[in-house]
């Protein structure tokens, strides 16, 4: 493993606490965890595409960041209406 792959694995391990918060805490807490998980996963994809020397795959990271932004906005809308 090179340094980029190690960094990506550390970021991927960080997804487990986010999953735990989503499963065990309230809706609003889960929303924060989803936002963090989107950041972590897109950075992990970016580092993996550098580590595997497949540079065009870094598009995936950008697309994931944009889509998780929109997804979190939608969940926030549901949270507003959940009163």
């Amino acid at each position, binding site marked *: 493993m090179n340094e980029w792959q190690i960094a990506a694995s550390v970021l991927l391990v*960080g997804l487990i606490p986010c999953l735990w918060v989503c499963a065990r805490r309230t809706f*609003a807490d889960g929303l924060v965890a989803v936002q963090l998980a989107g950041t972590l996963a897109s950075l992990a994809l970016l580092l993996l595409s550098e580590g595997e020397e497949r540079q*065009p795959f870094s598009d995936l990271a950008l697309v994931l960041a944009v889509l998780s932004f929109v997804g979190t906005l939608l969940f926030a809308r549901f949270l507003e209406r959940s009163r």
Partner: protein
Amino acid sequence: MRVAEAITYALLVVGVGLEVVATLGVMVMTRVYDRLHYLGPASLGAVLIAAALWVAEGSSFISLKATLLAAFLLIASPTLTHVTARATRISELGDWRPTTDERAEPRQR
């Protein structure tokens, strides 16, 4: 070349370390508003990782993509933090504006 490698490693370690701190903070804190504070280091870590890619690769396709990603996260992350806090207050209190209690004694909140 050795100096560039050392700078790359340092930026990468600090960037990933910030992400780990953000994850631990989100996991350990008890209230939503406390958890929200730890999303700031996450977008700062993205900037440091993009900087590490610039030092390692120079101006190339992936460093451009990393810069775009970091710039997008720098704009999107505060927006989402604001939206989440606002939605939480609306779901808890019915309105995001300060309540009369909070106006009377702002220091207690």
